[in-house]
């Protein structure tokens, strides 16, 4: 799934990679949830720089993490959406629940 980096005490950055479909989303989901519980994560920042493809299973995965974090007042940020991914974000309404930032610095500051 790519790298997981803790960038602040309660914030996780996830460098997604490759093609995020149902097969991959299931794997990522489990990995993230283990992290959230173990490290008391509040906010997640997804970096899409290396994502060449995402479908609605990726949308479901992000909404699922959103609901999980929301209970503790947490939020989700995204950076570097590639064109195909941006189209999926737009059509699915994801941009209404996640915050899109121009880079990691801005995300850490404003999330």
């Amino acid at each position, binding site marked *: 799934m790519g790298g997981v980096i803790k960038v602040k005490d309660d914030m996780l950055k996830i460098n997604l990679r490759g*093609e995020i*479909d*149902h*097969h991959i989303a*299931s794997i990522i*989901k489990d990995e993230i949830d283990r992290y959230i519980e173990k490290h008391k994560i509040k906010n997640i920042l997804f970096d899409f720089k290396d994502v060449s*493809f995402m*479908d*609605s*299973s990726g*949308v*479901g*995965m992000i*909404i*699922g993490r959103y609901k999980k974090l929301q209970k503790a007042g947490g939020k989700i940020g995204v950076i570097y959406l590639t*064109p*195909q991914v941006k*189209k*999926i974000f737009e*059509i*699915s309404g994801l941009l209404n629940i996640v915050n899109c930032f121009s880079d990691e610095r801005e995300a850490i500051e404003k999330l």
Partner: protein
Amino acid sequence: MTALNEMQLDFLSKSQNESFARVVVAAFASQLDPTLDELADIKTAVSEAVTNCIIHGYENTVGVIRIKSKLYTDKIIISVQDWGKGIEDIQKARQPLWTSKPELERSGMGFTIMEDFMDKLEIESTPGEGTIITMVKNLGDSSERNNS
């Protein structure tokens, strides 16, 4: 009009075949020299349809999924078929955000994406017998080419 080319692919409803199905259809569609945007749309729609067969049609048991595709000078036709559960209410299924499996974190956006990314979407389904999704993508629209 006869097709320029035709293919049919049968494979098992295993989630690792989702990417395989995308590669196959993309490689076939490439013969029409689509734009990168058109190719991305086709891959996305195929991914949605195949995932639905695996999750909803066969509910994670192992069955056969069939993809058929025909190429014409200006369009590609793709159908994705399963012999699984079928859809009770097709109109409801087509609605954005509606899903029968929220517990699996489905977003209910599959059909909406297929409809939006392709130029035509047809759903035929019989409960207990299975489902066929047929999609058409027109290629070489000048508007598409300008966007890419």
